[in-house]
């Protein structure tokens, strides 16, 4: 059976070049980078180089990069760390309704621990309005956290404008750029960002590695203590092979982004157009065109449920994801789709297909051939569907 992977927003395979490089640091250059001896020094040097590569992809200085165990930890470090250190200045924080759980759950934790939070809504395309952010700002606002691009519906937020406002008012600005890294140009200076989260396993690097950009001069409290690695902001023996792999992945992403995006946009739009032409009562979630990530397709297929759809796709070898409550382990369907005004039922029938480097036209053709059949079968099983 064909196996077609269309879940690159969840995670990506590790690029063979990255895997090969990591292998060397597993078995040959395995020293602790903090050690005096040559086994350690070689690794230290390779980590420095990785830091330069990561920094270069987001227009930062290497000394502004702190490696973490992933995007989730980086989000937590940014938000908890900024909130703790600025508590005397103020205790109000702003974010949007469609952030990743790593941001939203951290906000909710802070809300239970003496902070006040404002969660600004989004429009029906999943876009935050700059005016809403501006209105939410109070004299005691210390942090604004807005994602660059949404992981479910691919909507690209006006972060540069929000950054400008935050900078004017002296409010820290955190951006979760996990989904945009390697797909959209990122420049922390142009975007007026103070803290920026990125993650390796979304850009063909290894899982379990991420980084927080911390603008020079910005101080945050650590989450984890001991050992003083990563400039005392993040302790623990460095995941050297992971960091070095992340560096390589950033290098490759920088080289390939421009060409890759042209191809991704083409396949994305082919998939959208094909689905809309062959299946009725389908809703596109998120904006189309330039305000959408090049690799994101998200639709709601009325009258059917997401997990059933995913299972059926999986049985013909196609891997996607859904915002259905049945896939989430929680009781509610995607908070992103609900925030965009979808009903529970429609949110339930959502399907995200996220494209990657190796997807081909043949694969898209195959999806366009199988999906309508599956939808037909499931609709016939659905008590909600009437032709």
């Amino acid at each position, binding site marked *: 059976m064909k196996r077609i992977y269309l879940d690159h927003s969840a995670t990506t395979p590790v690029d063979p070049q990255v895997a090969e490089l990591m292998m060397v640091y597993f078995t040959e250059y395995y020293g602790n980078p903090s050690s005096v001896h040559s086994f350690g020094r070689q690794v230290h040097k390779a980590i420095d180089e990785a830091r330069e590569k990561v920094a270069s992809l987001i227009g930062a200085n290497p000394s502004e990069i702190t490696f973490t165990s992933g995007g989730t930890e980086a989000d937590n470090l940014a938000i908890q760390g900024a909130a703790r250190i600025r508590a005397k200045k103020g205790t109000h924080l702003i974010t949007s309704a469609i952030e990743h759980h790593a941001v939203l759950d951290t906000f909710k934790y802070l809300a239970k621990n003496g902070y006040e939070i404002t969660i600004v809504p989004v429009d029906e395309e999943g876009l935050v309005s700059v005016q809403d952010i501006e209105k939410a700002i109070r004299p005691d606002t210390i942090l604004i956290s807005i994602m660059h691009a949404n992981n479910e519906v691919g909507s690209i937020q006006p972060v540069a404008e929000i950054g400008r406002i935050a900078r004017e008012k002296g409010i820290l600005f955190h951006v979760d750029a996990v989904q945009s890294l390697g797909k959209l140009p990122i420049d922390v200076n142009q975007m007026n960002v103070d803290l920026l989260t990125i993650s390796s396993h979304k850009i063909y690097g290894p899982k379990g590695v991420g980084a927080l950009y911390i603008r020079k001069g910005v101080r945050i409290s650590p989450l984890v203590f001991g050992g003083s690695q990563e400039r005392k902001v993040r302790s623990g023996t460095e995941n050297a092979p992971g960091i070095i792999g992340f560096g390589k992945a950033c290098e490759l992403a920088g080289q390939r982004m421009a060409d890759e995006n042209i191809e991704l946009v083409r396949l994305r739009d082919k998939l959208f157009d094909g689905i809309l032409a062959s299946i009725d009562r389908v809703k596109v979630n998120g904006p189309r065109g330039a305000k959408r990530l090049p690799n994101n397709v998200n639709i709601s297929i009325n009258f059917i449920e997401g997990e059933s759809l995913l*299972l059926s796709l999986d049985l013909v070898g196609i891997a996607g994801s859904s915002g259905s409550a049945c896939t989430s382990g929680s009781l509610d369907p995607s908070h992103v789709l609900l925030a965009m005004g979808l009903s529970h039922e429609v949110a339930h029938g959502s399907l995200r297909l996220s494209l990657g480097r190796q997807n081909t036209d043949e694969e898209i053709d195959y999806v366009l051939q199988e999906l309508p059949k599956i939808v037909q079968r499931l609709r016939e099983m659905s008590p909600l569907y009437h032709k």
Partner: protein
Amino acid sequence: MYSEKVIDHFTNPRNVGEIENANGVGQVGNAKCGDIMRISMVVENDVIKDIKFKTFGCGAAVATSSMVTEMVKGKSVNEALDISNAAVAEALGGLPEAKLHCSNLAADAVHEAIKDYIQKKTKV
């Protein structure tokens, strides 16, 4: 995560559809995740002669729907009322813990349909 039996019932669900001249119809919604199941049945002399289901829900919801219709078909309504949600899950070779609530849909919908049948019968 699903057993082979679940996957089998999901891919080849038994008794999908709606019976036009049903004399027992039941619909339940799953409060937990917002899913829906509708059972229609033909009962003669308190025996379930025919039964069909329609389900909007996850793989487990579809499989348990399919399984429960097989389990009660040909049974008396009293026997059918004795079939518990747990028995349906068990007949499928078990369900993942997070999916146990889905099996509630299936038996409940059947029980609702039987109640409907009994009410209608009483009225006549």
